[in-house]
């Protein structure tokens, strides 16, 4: 009997020669992370243990990205606790505002995750790194505290659902649409406790930014992790990141699923007729084709986040916004996911296009995605966002609404003032 990528990575990190889904294992983690919301809890619990050292100063990242630049006094205190802890325990990977980025865009960019790694993070979208052929999943703050101390984590070995994407993708359709379509088909608990392995000819030609978007939203289907076999494209991405930020790192071990691996289910989609998708309030599974949505006026458009705040998202948005103006009643908020993306967007003139169109171009932050800051919705307001969740009250008032889409739909919507297909503008 063969194994899936997920099973092979868990097996290797549990020091086992065989493994079965449903089993509980203690695994060694290659890397762990927390942010300004989840790490303070972990720090408090770790300090109670009275240890002098963390398990490995080079394998922990603390990223103040959620409520930063600090939105109020309490948030400032929480963010500060990360800086203080990082200094006290010599944590190597801590970034201040100005160098910081949205964690799940930042870590791959910095070459801190590679194929075959096992990463846990006190943030549900930690599943993003599956795009590099790594096993990564969200855990809680107590799990993070335990990992700080032991370098280990308990996990239940998940069954894997294999998703096969066939056909060819239309213009304006990207990874975000593939994953919204998938969540729409299986529901928000359709992959509960399961690994989601994304495969097929469409995935093989999918750019890395789109792969990150897909794996990022595995959690929105209840998945434990999303994973894509690391191919030449993924290895190229990682090697480039190593060369730029981590020249001492070189070894890459790529795991592939065996031909006779056991899947709990195999689901195939032909994406040839797939259109840009929009998730309607209040669940990511509540999807509809963008062109079928009529007369939904929006007050705010957000382009950013760990899902779609990468360079290709900003490029496509700028293409649509160039020589266009945002409708007078719309607030367009563009947030590059990392400082590197920010700088590149300035260099390429993208930032200029956003500002000329009547939008704002912000420093990296998770801010509005979770109703933190930089764009909270008032009662009765409506936003279209390239983020990942549209639960009740997610971006502000419990009586506000969030719609989710790719960056092209978002940019076009800002121009039209109501939800539309990119071709309604271009």
């Amino acid at each position, binding site marked *: 009997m063969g194994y899936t990528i997920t099973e092979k990575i868990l097996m290797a990190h549990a020091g086992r020669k065989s493994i079965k889904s449903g089993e509980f294992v203690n695994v060694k983690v290659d890397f762990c992370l927390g942010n300004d919301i989840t790490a303070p809890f972990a720090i408090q619990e770790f300090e109670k*243990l009275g240890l002098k050292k963390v398990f490995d100063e080079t394998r922990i990242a603390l990223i103040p990205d*959620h409520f930063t630049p600090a939105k*109020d006094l309490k948030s400032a205190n929480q963010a500060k606790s990360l800086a203080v802890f990082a200094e006290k325990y010599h944590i190597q990977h801590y970034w201040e505002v100005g160098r910081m980025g949205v964690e799940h865009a930042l870590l791959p960019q910095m070459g801190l995750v590679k194929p075959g790694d096992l990463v846990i993070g006190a943030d549900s979208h930690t599943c993003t790194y599956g795009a590099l052929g790594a096993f990564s999943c*969200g855990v*809680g703050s*107590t799990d993070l505290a335990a990992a700080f101390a032991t370098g280990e984590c308990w996990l239940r070995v998940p069954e894997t659902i294999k998703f096969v994407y066939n056909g060819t993708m239309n213009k304006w359709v990207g990874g975000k649409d593939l994953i919204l379509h998938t969540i729409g088909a299986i529901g928000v608990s359709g992959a509960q406790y399961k690994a989601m392995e994304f495969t097929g000819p469409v995935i093989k030609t999918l750019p890395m930014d789109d792969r990150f978007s897909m794996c990022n939203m595995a959690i929105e289907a209840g998945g434990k992790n999303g994973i894509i076999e690391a191919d030449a494209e993924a290895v190229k991405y990682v090697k480039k990141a190593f060369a730029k930020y981590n020249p001492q790192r070189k070894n890459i071990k790529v795991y592939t699923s065996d031909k006779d691996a056991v899947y709990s289910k195999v689901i195939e989609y032909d994406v040839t007729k797939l259109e840009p998708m929009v998730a309607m309030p209040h669940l990511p599974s509540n999807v509809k084709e963008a062109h079928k949505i009529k007369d939904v006026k929006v007050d705010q458009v957000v382009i950013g986040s760990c899902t779609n705040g990468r360079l290709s998202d900003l490029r496509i948005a700028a293409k649509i916004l160039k020589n266009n103006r945002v409708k007078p009643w719309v607030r367009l908020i563009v947030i590059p996911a990392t400082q590197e993306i920010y700088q590149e967007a300035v260099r390429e003139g993208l930032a200029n296009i956003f500002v000329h169109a009547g939008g704002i171009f912000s420093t990296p932050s998770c801010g509005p995605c979770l*109703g933190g800051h930089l764009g909270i919705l008032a009662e009765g307001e409506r936003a279209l966002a390239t983020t990942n969740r549209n639960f009740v009250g997610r971006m502000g008032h419990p009586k506000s609404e969030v719609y989710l889409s790719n960056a092209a739909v978002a940019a076009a919507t800002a121009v039209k003032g109501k939800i539309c297909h990119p071709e309604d503008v271009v």
Partner: protein
Amino acid sequence: MKFKGYAHTFGNDVNTDEILPARYLHTIDPQELASHCMEDADPHFVKKVKPGDMIVAGDNFGCGSSREHAPFAIKASGVSCVIAASFARIFYRNAINIGLPILVSKEAASDVKSGDALEIDTQKGLIKNITKKRDYISDVYPEFIQNIIKADGLMNYIRKKKK
């Protein structure tokens, strides 16, 4: 552990944004978090809930973010136990890790109504509905999880292992 209290019911896919909205995530103070527990699912929950009461919900309870503030707020609000048809995985492990008792029972999730008086024995996995005079059995925890529960949470479990 044995608990007695009244049920407060919720539907499917109750997410962590409803359990503890992000606008309150700038603190880790238990009492402050408790004062906003379930706020966006039921704004009156905090006023209604009495120590020992239970939350009974449908499928996928606690879906969404990894914020441990969610189970922490529930525990700090005096809720003795959460019963659901199923739990989202991060919420499940967070509850186990911080020692908030949770039980999986599809039967109880579909049958219990808000206000029903319940008696729970977590050891036996027995849920007694006093109002309806009915019993439900919950799924048994795997041994691995039982050991964490017996140690009263993950950090104590680690403390014991480190000794």
